[in-house]
């Protein structure tokens, strides 16, 4: 009985949270559609989300590309298929690793900061002050972050993928002695624009996941500093899980429109 009650509570909490995120997304997209966009704040957020996240995304992409290349080489070399390493890494980076790793890294860096900032504003009555001054908190806090995130994420994904493939090329050709011409030729042969499109679509979708979960957690923060800390932890965990889980379903759905190979 206790187990049933526990499962019931977990399901109710999950559905409530999902509903709150969906309502926030609906309000935000409605405000964007109505043109309630503060350009100055959007630019500030692009600097914070896009510009300042580049290093972490580039390093993540580059080292993932390098290590994936090494592992693929160790396996393929036994089959004399070294030149297949390039397309395997490129396809994986475009279709899965690039958007997913960028999403998880941005959730950790930006999502946590967003939640902590908005959560602190909530518990110190700054959001009430905004409302008392006739400023809608969604318009002022969420819309600029959402717009900046939707603009920045595709660029960050491209950087992650690009540096991943560059690192893969360097590791494969310079370190593991795979012939460079075949490496590049096979990448060109096995990848096309649909892989890039899939990467960008996923990046765009994960941007929404991160911004709406982070802002919802921040706006719902309570119980002072402890509550903000709890909300921030919850943001990183929920964003990461949501990205990883939704990535599976996105892959299955997008594969219908952009089949691999």
């Amino acid at each position, binding site marked *: 009985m206790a187990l049933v009650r526990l499962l019931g509570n977990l399901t109710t909490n999950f559905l409530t949270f999902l509903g709150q995120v969906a309502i926030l997304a609906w309000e935000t997209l409605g405000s964007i559609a109505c043109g309630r966009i503060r350009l100055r704040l959007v630019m500030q957020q692009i600097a914070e989300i896009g510009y300042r996240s580049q290093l972490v995304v580039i390093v993540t992409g580059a080292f993932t590309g390098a290590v994936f290349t090494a592992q693929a080489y160790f396996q393929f070399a036994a089959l004399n298929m070294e030149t297949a390493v390039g397309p395997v890494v490129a396809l994986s980076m475009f279709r899965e690793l690039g958007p997913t790793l960028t999403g998880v890294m941005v959730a950790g860096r930006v999502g946590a900061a967003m939640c902590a900032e908005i959560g602190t504003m909530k518990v*110190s009555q*700054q959001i*009430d*002050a905004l409302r008392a*001054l*006739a*400023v809608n908190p969604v318009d002022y806090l969420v819309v600029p972050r959402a717009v900046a995130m939707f603009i920045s994420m595709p660029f960050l994904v491209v950087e992650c993928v690009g540096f991943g493939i560059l690192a893969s090329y360097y590791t494969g050709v310079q370190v593991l002695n795979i012939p460079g011409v075949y490496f590049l030729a096979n990448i060109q042969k096995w990848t096309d624009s649909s892989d890039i499109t899939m990467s960008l679509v996923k990046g765009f979708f994960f941007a929404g996941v991160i911004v709406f979960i982070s802002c919802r957690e921040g706006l719902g923060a309570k119980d002072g500093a402890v509550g903000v800390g709890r909300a921030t932890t919850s943001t990183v965990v929920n964003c990461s899980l949501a990205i990883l889980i939704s990535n599976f379903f996105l892959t299955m759905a997008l594969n219908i429109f952009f089949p691999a190979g």
Partner: protein
Amino acid sequence: MFSGETLVLLGKSGGGKSVFLRHLIGLMRPLSGSITFEHEEITTLDERALEPVRRRIGMLFQDGALFDSMNVFDNVAFPLRERGEKNPATIAQKVAESLAMVNMTGHDKKMPVNLSGGMRKRVALARAIISPPSVILYDEPTAGLDPIVSDSINKLIRHLQKELHVTSIVVTHDMVSCFHIADRVALLDQGRIYFVGSPEELKSTTDPVIRDFVDGRSGETIY
């Protein structure tokens, strides 16, 4: 409420005074009852529909609730910018006037974290009055302040009433402040308005509940 008067709302800590104030500006919604502002029922309005009402009401929060990412100037200029004022000269002039009114001239570059409690409240007041409201709600304006700063805040509330002819509701349990600024006093007890009258009537009443509050008697005898 009568237009242009200052009503002081007294009551025990945790008695619901601040909650009452938050209902008046729509930050909380009542489970029952109604609130009418300038002949308009506001309890049924949603967030967007409340915005025009909130533009006519200024609120001073207990700890100021200044935006800690902005300096004093930007905090005070915030309502002007949000209402579409783009001319930097006009903004600078109005901010200077507001800061002068609360004796905070020369502090405009400071961040909220570097201000004392009294300074934060005065800056918050400057922010609340920069687009002159018809009503100002004060939540514990003198709580945690020394007597001299409290007196300056009290004088400021009186001054604003005379200068801007605003209607004020002041939530406090500071009796000195109450007698200094009130035109009328209301006492909240167990969720209901127990007494409404002039400060003189409050002083002269023999009602034991009111006398305990005015004279600061807890009624406890264990120590």
